[in-house]
């Protein structure tokens, strides 16, 4: 029988054909660890996938890398979707990766980081959205499992610290796939009821998967939308969930949440005692200050010596008078007075000189007058002749048949005219 020899190419082609025909190899799901990770200049990823006993090479084409939500590196535990095929030129088989995610916890952590970054960018963690927790709440709501450790811790703490409140439990599934809807729904319900002053949401400790409900966007949104202040209390001190960031206050544990939600009896007693003492002090201070004020009034000089009031009045009057006296008008009046006196004096002088002059004139005139006084002329022997009481200067005016009167300086003569002789 003649032997048929295949070429290498034919062999590899055949093998590739067989691989590609196998449905099991066309869609494989693989869990592995990355090693020999290389990024090709074109963006393709070359790597080796291994577990503790075996390894296989793999390639992820650049077109598939866009769906990656992490930066692969050696040592990463990953889950992979892809197919197995033969690379003919080298005769090797390898895995062609379609989809690659970090495995398990790694993957959850990644989703957490992604959502946290997203919500933070939306401003949902901002301080300005945080509501204050009321100091003395009347009703406290708790969204948690009614049978879990969290509610037990919360009730215990509240009974010790501040048993005046009512606690309303909004029962929720706090783990498993339905947790997120359940938690979100109960937060919304509490807001609709609007019966509580503050809402605690949370659960006791557990694995990261157990707490996962509190890392879901739907829960974050319900917390953000809540009009009731929310204290988150998920797991232990070291567990930070998305709910913690969106809530108004983060408590490290459910017990801590209860402490944050209510004041402590002890503190209130202290406040009350302080207040009572403060009031006593204040009242005493008040009375003392009033008493002091009263004694100040009693001690007042006016009370002791009422005449002081008048003395003071008198003093102020004198003072006023002095001021008035010192005031300008007085000077002005003096000035006026002086002016008047001066004027008077000048007027007097003027009048006196006028009078003197007049008198001199009068004397002189009198002397002149004396010279022409008819009496003084008549004393020298002159007489005045009147006829019918009319002085006659000429004999032509004198009638012969009538009497004439001849006046001397010391008397008159009634005479008859005997004869008229006219001087030529």
């Amino acid at each position, binding site marked *: 029988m003649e032997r048929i020899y295949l070429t290498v190419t034919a062999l590899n082609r055949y093998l590739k054909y067989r691989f590609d025909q196998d449905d099991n190899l066309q869609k494989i799901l693989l869990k592995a660890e990355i090693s020999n990770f290389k990024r090709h200049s074109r963006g393709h990823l070359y790597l080796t996938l291994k577990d503790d006993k075996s390894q296989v090479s793999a390639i992820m084409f650049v077109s598939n890398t866009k769906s990656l939500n992490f930066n692969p590196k050696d040592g990463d535990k990953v889950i992979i979707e892809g197919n197995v095929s033969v690379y003919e030129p080298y005769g090797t088989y390898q895995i062609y990766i379609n989809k690659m995610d970090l495995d398990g916890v790694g993957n959850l952590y990644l989703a957490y980081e992604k959502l946290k970054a997203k919500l933070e960018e939306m401003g949902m963690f901002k301080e300005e959205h945080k509501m204050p927790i*009321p*100091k*003395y*709440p*009347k009703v*406290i709501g708790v969204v948690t499992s*009614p049978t879990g450790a969290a*509610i*037990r811790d919360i*009730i215990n703490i*509240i*009974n010790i610290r*501040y*048993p*005046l*409140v*009512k*606690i*309303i*439990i*909004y*029962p929720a599934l706090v783990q498993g796939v339905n947790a997120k809807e359940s938690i979100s729904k*109960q937060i919304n*319900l*509490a807001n609709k*009821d609007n019966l509580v002053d503050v809402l605690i949401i949370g659960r006791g400790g557990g694995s990261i998967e157990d707490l996962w409900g509190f890392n879901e966007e739907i829960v974050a949104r319900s917390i953000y939308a809540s009009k009731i202040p929310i204290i988150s209390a998920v797991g232990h001190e070291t567990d930070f969930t998305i709910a913690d960031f969106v809530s108004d206050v983060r408590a490290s544990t459910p017990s801590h949440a209860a402490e944050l939600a209510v004041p402590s*009896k002890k503190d*209130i*007693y202290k*406040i*009350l005692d302080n*207040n*009572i003492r*403060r*009031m*006593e002090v*204040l*009242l005493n*201070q*008040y*009375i003392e*200050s*009033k008493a002091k004020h009263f004694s100040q009034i009693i001690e007042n000089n006016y009370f002791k010596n009422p005449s002081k009031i008048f003395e003071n009045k008198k003093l102020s009057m004198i003072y006023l008078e002095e001021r008035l006296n010192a005031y300008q008008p007085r000077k002005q009046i003096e000035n006026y007075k002086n002016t008047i006196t001066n004027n008077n004096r000048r007027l007097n002088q003027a009048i006196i000189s006028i009078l003197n002059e007049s008198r001199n004139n009068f004397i002189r005139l009198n002397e002149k007058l004396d010279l022409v006084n008819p009496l003084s002329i008549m004393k020298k022997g002159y007489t005045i002749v009147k006829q019918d009481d009319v002085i006659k200067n000429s004999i032509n005016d004198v009638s012969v048949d009538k009497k004439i009167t001849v006046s001397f300086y010391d008397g008159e003569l009634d005479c008859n005219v005997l004869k008229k002789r006219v001087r030529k």
Partner: protein
Amino acid sequence: MKELTFEEKMKELEELIKKLESGDNSLDESVKLYKKGITLAKECHQELEEAEKAILELRTENGLEEFNK
């Protein structure tokens, strides 16, 4: 008059002390404020002492039910 809640009492006590501190009340008012303050403080004290356990309720589809853990 409606019974004041614990919170309202604590608040009123604070306000009252503020008023006392201001010092501009009459003697009569001050004494009244003091008396009222002492009464309030004692009431608060008593309420806390007498309260033993918080009331527990469970929100169900039918509304609130008593809850016994």
